[in-house]
């Protein structure tokens, strides 16, 4: 399984610098993968989970991710959890957004100009792909893959979507240990992808109540689709609902 990543840098002021920055950004992602993978037997996450590492021995990265997860857990009343129902440590709910945002930070620091980074459907954008308009991010309809629920046009920002439609119920409610139910997908816009990704996962775990909750925890807009096909959103989210394609 791989999550596809792509970076689009439409007009870098310095091409060599941009190439280097993109390479660095991707190596950051690979580093994160090695550190956090549940599938690599000697990854730091696996070793910590197995009790081979103490808390104080952890890398700053893992410490930061666990702190993020902890904050998200508290903020969501326990719905967000990096402990799977069987007790194993699974940082995937935080790491993808965190690692992708870090990769985006490399590009920002290198001043590559406008860019769009897409990591498995989670998106960070900066600037304008063409002068005069922001990046257009289509938010997929969970059942009808050839339609978009909304098209978000934004310059600087992040969009994350969590859903059950491809991976099945892979998000669980940390309060009950049951797999999350009620929502087919949740999309959150925020200033950064760390926030957006954690919130999107939390909304999926919380269910319909998560929409208003995320709105009060750093989301600039929230959209969710219930299992029975209703679209929920906060005020900003509902404003995004368009009919980009013929209806």
């Amino acid at each position, binding site marked *: 399984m791989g999550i*596809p990543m792509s970076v689009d*840098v439409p007009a870098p002021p310095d091409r060599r610098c941009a190439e280097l920055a993109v390479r660095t950004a991707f190596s950051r992602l690979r580093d994160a993968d090695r550190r956090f993978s549940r599938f690599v037997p000697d990854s730091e996450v696996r070793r910590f989970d197995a009790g081979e590492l103490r808390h104080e021995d952890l890398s700053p990265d893992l410490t930061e991710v666990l702190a993020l997860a902890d904050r998200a857990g508290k903020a969501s009343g326990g719905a967000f959890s990096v402990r799977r129902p069987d007790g194993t440590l699974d940082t995937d709910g935080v790491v993808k957004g965190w690692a992708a945002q870090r990769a985006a930070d490399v590009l920002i620091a290198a001043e590559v100009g406008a860019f769009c980074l897409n990591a498995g459907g989670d998106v960070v954008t900066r600037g304008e792909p063409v002068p005069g308009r922001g990046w257009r*991010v289509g938010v*997929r309809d969970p059942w009808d893959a050839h339609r978009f629920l909304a098209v978000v046009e934004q310059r600087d920002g992040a969009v994350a979507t969590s859903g059950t439609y491809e991976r099945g119920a892979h998000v669980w409610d940390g309060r009950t240990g049951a797999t999350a139910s009620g929502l087919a997908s949740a999309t959150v816009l925020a200033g950064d992808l760390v926030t957006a990704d954690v919130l999107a996962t939390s909304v999926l775990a919380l269910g319909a109540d998560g929409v208003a909750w995320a709105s009060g925890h750093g989301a600039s807009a929230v959209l969710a689709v219930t299992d029975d096909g209703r679209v929920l959103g906060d005020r900003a989210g509902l404003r995004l609902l368009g009919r980009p394609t013929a209806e």
Partner: protein
Amino acid sequence: MSTMRWRGTLIYTGTVAAIGAAGIARFVVTPDAAPATASGIGTSDGQSSSSSSGTSSGSGSSGSSSSGSSGSSATDTTGGGTTTSDSVTVVGSVASTRYGNVQVSVTFQGSTITDVQTLQAPDRERESQQISARSVPVLAQEVLDAQSAQVDTVSGATYTSEGYRESVQSAIDQRG
């Protein structure tokens, strides 16, 4: 690689495992003017050893690290872009998904996508067949509609379709 004027899009695609797989580390640098079939596409591979000509297909994501998928050879046979009159067909990288390999080709007329063909789709297991039977035709349609909606990128919680779209995306990316 070769010297080229810089303008246009610098696109970098890769796959990172678990949170992602073996990155492919391929740069596709699109010089101005030139549609993808032309020269001047710099390819520098980190891990894969493709020396693709022109735009061509990716040795890309699939061959990746661990699982060693078999699909990527198919790309070689298709040999990348085909051009007839104004239309350009670009073969996307093979994308590995949990359900199998996915690869598509995309035909452009100018900057408009006019056709999407599925070259490989998952069919290994019954479950996969059910999934792909439902999702593959729809996804092909999606690309066309994505064009009409003029989106730059897609946010979605994805697995099969992301692999699929990634393959389409990589075709689009390689076209530049």
